[in-house]
């Protein structure tokens, strides 16, 4: 019991050294950060003397993982967005309408004249002229259903068709809705990610949360508004034929037409055909540029099928205007001067350089499949974060010092062992945090300070126990052995319960609270390890060297 096998000693010291080695980069935060950034920059942009100097600021063979600083420490923006999947359901129903119409027309002799009526959003409702024809209508429309391929919905079809009286209702089936939510979310995530990556910020967090939400955290960005402007627009770009131009916002647009405002001419409206000639999904590239007058503009290029449609339309409609529509606003409505067979063109509006750059980014990244609603947003300024770090550092140092002094005053030499163990413990916490790339938040710092206070607990338990065992006078070695043995169950029970709450905190919490949970949990694991291995080994080594006849604790 009191002698550690050599392999155990090596393993324990190895773990400690490894932990400290991984913690080390955090002591030189800005240098290591510069090194990491430079590595990335060299890979993407090529090397410059400046970058190489930065890269060599930290030796490449040393670990260079850092504890990420959370938004509340670094400054940045946090957004929680909800994807309006209902929009997608509605779009699907609109797209299904022509098929339903055609299917019902084939059984017209039995169902009579049909008319689409406004139902609840996300459903398609059709009134039949002859209620008696409902069975035939149901059969015809059910014929449109397609089986869906998914793990959960085997054998299910994508639409539910039902009839009541003379009204036939079509809606997406439950498994299809699930599949749609999944698809929409994944697509939205991808597009949000691309839009944020385009502006090249450091380590953004973009993840799905719950059923239909996206959590976006971008360090270093000025404000949540900026972030919203970047990702908040759907960026649905279409090219539509123009019917007429008007200044009356209430003018009836007529069937299958739409009245949309102009973006840069207030009070002007365009009546356009709803069905676009080409849409933004067929874009392959978009870049900010300047037009022949030196005004900022955006160039675009279609894929072959888009180019064909675009070329054909422009060839047939030379001399008539067509509208470039972005998110239900007409950016511009140029007159087609000649056929554009190349599939590339230029959009001019009254852009500033910034606007044209942003529009190009949005078009390149593609349209969001559904609108986003922002449920929560937080902006933290970098200065506030820096102040918090400073305060946290001072508080940790003070806490550390107080605890060290107190332990030494209470347990003397053994207290010093515990103090060395505490220092190792803090090193291990940082090492682990860096290794797993965890994020340190303000409550996380509080968690570490709390750990400093609580970490000595396991040692205290053992030392108190040893004191008790010494009273029964079995000799120091035996007392230490018994002390460790008997304190073990209390140490385990006490720490497992705290660990359980940390797990619950992690699962239920979000953002900074999670950061706290992680540091708390790691702190528990390291302090147990340190107390039952590192401190014990130090004591054992000291005992082996000194062979004291009695110990004072």
């Amino acid at each position, binding site marked *: 019991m009191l002698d550690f096998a050599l392999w155990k000693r090596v393993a324990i010291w190895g773990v400690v050294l490894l932990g400290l080695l991984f913690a080390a980069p955090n002591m030189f935060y800005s240098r290591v950060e510069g090194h990491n950034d430079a590595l990335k920059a060299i890979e993407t942009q090529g090397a410059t003397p400046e970058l190489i100097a930065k890269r060599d600021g930290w030796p490449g063979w040393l670990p260079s993982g850092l504890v990420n600083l959370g938004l509340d420490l670094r400054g940045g923006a946090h957004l*929680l967005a*909800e994807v309006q999947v209902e929009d997608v359901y509605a779009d699907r129903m609109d797209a299904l309408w022509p098929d339903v119409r055609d299917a019902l027309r084939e059984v017209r002799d039995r169902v009579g004249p049909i008319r689409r009526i406004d139902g609840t959003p996300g459903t398609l409702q059709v009134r039949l002229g002859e209620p008696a024809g409902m069975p035939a209508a149901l059969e015809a429309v059910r014929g449109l259903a397609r089986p869906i391929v998914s793990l959960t919905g085997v054998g299910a079809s994508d639409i539910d068709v039902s009839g009541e009286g003379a009204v036939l209702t079509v809606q997406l089936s439950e498994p299809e809705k699930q599949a749609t939510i999944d698809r929409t979310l994944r697509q939205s995530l991808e597009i949000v990610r691309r839009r944020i990556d385009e502006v090249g910020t450091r380590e953004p967090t973009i993840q799905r949360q719950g059923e239909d939400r996206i959590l976006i955290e971008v360090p270093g960005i000025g*404000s*949540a*508004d900026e972030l919203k402007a970047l990702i908040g627009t759907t960026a649905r770009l279409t090219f539509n034929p123009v019917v007429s131009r008007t200044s009356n916002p209430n003018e009836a647009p007529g069937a299958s037409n739409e009245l949309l405002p102009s973006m840069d001419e207030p009070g002007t409206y365009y009546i356009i055909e709803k069905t676009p000639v080409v849409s933004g999904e067929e874009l392959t590239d978009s870049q900010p540029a300047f037009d022949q007058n030196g005004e900022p503009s955006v160039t675009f290029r279609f894929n072959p099928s888009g180019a064909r449609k675009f070329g054909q339309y422009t060839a047939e409609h030379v001399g008539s205007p067509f509208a470039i529509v972005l998110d239900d606003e007409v950016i511009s409505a140029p007159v087609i001067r000649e056929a554009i067979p190349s599939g590339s063109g230029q959009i001019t509006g009254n852009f500033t350089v910034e606007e044209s750059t942003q529009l190009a980014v949005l078009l390149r990244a593609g349209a969001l499949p559904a609108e986003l*609603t922002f*449920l*929560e*947003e*937080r*902006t*933290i*300024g970098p*200065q*506030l974060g820096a*102040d*918090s770090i400073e*305060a*946290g550092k*001072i*508080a940790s140092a*003070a*806490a550390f010092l*107080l*605890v060290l002094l*107190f332990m030494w*005053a*209470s347990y*003397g030499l053994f207290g010093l062992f515990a103090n060395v163990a505490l220092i190792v413990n803090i090193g291990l916490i940082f090492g682990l945090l860096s290794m797993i790339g965890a994020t340190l938040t*303000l*409550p996380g710092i*509080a968690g570490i*300070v*709390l750990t400093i*206070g*609580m970490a*000595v*607990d396991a040692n*205290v*338990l053992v030392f*108190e126990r040893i004191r008790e065992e010494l009273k029964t006078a079995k000799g120091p070695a035996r007392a230490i052995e018994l002390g460790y043995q008997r304190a*073990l*169950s*209390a140490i*385990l029970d006490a*720490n*497992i*319960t*705290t*660990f*359980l*709450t*940390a797990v*619950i*905190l992690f699962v*239920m*919490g979000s953002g900074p*609270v999670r950061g*706290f949970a992680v540091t708390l949990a790691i702190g528990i694991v390291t302090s147990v390890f340190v107390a039952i291995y590192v401190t014990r080994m130090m004591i054992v080594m000291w005992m082996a060297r000194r062979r004291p006849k009695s110990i004072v*604790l």
Partner: protein
Amino acid sequence: MRLKLVPSNTSWDFFKFSHISLGASALAMVVSIVLVFTMGLNFGIDFKGGTTIRTESSQPVDVGAYRQAISALDLGDVSITEVFDPSFGPGKNVAQIRIQAQGDAESVTPETIAALEQALSAVDPSITFPSVESVGPKVSGELVTSAAIAVSLSILAMLVYIWLRFEWQFGLGAVVALIHDVTLTMGIFAGLQLKFDLAIIAALLTIVGYSVNDTVVVFDRVRENLRKFKKMALKDVLNLSINETLSRTTMTSFTTLLALIALIVLGGDVIRGFVFAMTWGIIVGTYSSIFVAANILLMLGVKRDWSKEGDGGAGTQFANAER
């Protein structure tokens, strides 16, 4: 010469005045519950929805002028508080502005924020906005639910764990102590009208962990002594166990408090509420593990007929899991 918080050998009777301590605890709990229901918790935007803006300026904060500038925008309920902190140097004046939730489900619009910032800049040109946070009512409602679930879940998890490792009486004792601590913490937040937000929930959960930690150490010793002194009355076993672990209990609480006090004094105003909750919880938690948990255990009694259970261990088959 060693520093000792309590004498090495104590044989205090912790149950001598148990009716007083239990009565005091019960009274404190009732007062807390009454406070929570009458004064209500001062919910932060996490739970109520709305927007908080932190302002910083080199000029002294003029709450009246701020209020006037903001009221022109017609944003409904607005509260403005000046923040004081010893760590602020001269020329750093901080205020916290809270406006109620505006829309149905969404957080605040950029236009509202811009208008607000503009109005305040007109009052004080040197003003900056180091943080702006906004939570829509939809999310805040869910946050309340998940916070309540988290706290209940953790208490339940403790109950189950201790029940498995000890006996159900131990679990119940620990859980009553936990509820005691959580109630008292909520009570003081209601009484002092301190801001109650997500961070405080994190603190509450940590208190739950800490309090159980404390209780378990005492219970562990109780279990051991129950095996050792089979004839001793339960009350004496409890007293002995508490006395034996008293030194450890005070040591650990003291070091933890040292660290927390460092945080309160030096950690800055942003996390002060969080740290305050924790500090209070540790004091209450230490008290409750002795005076509430052990008392409940004494009242419930423990089955002590383990002679038929082989090695004579109290608790269930999981009691010696680590051996």
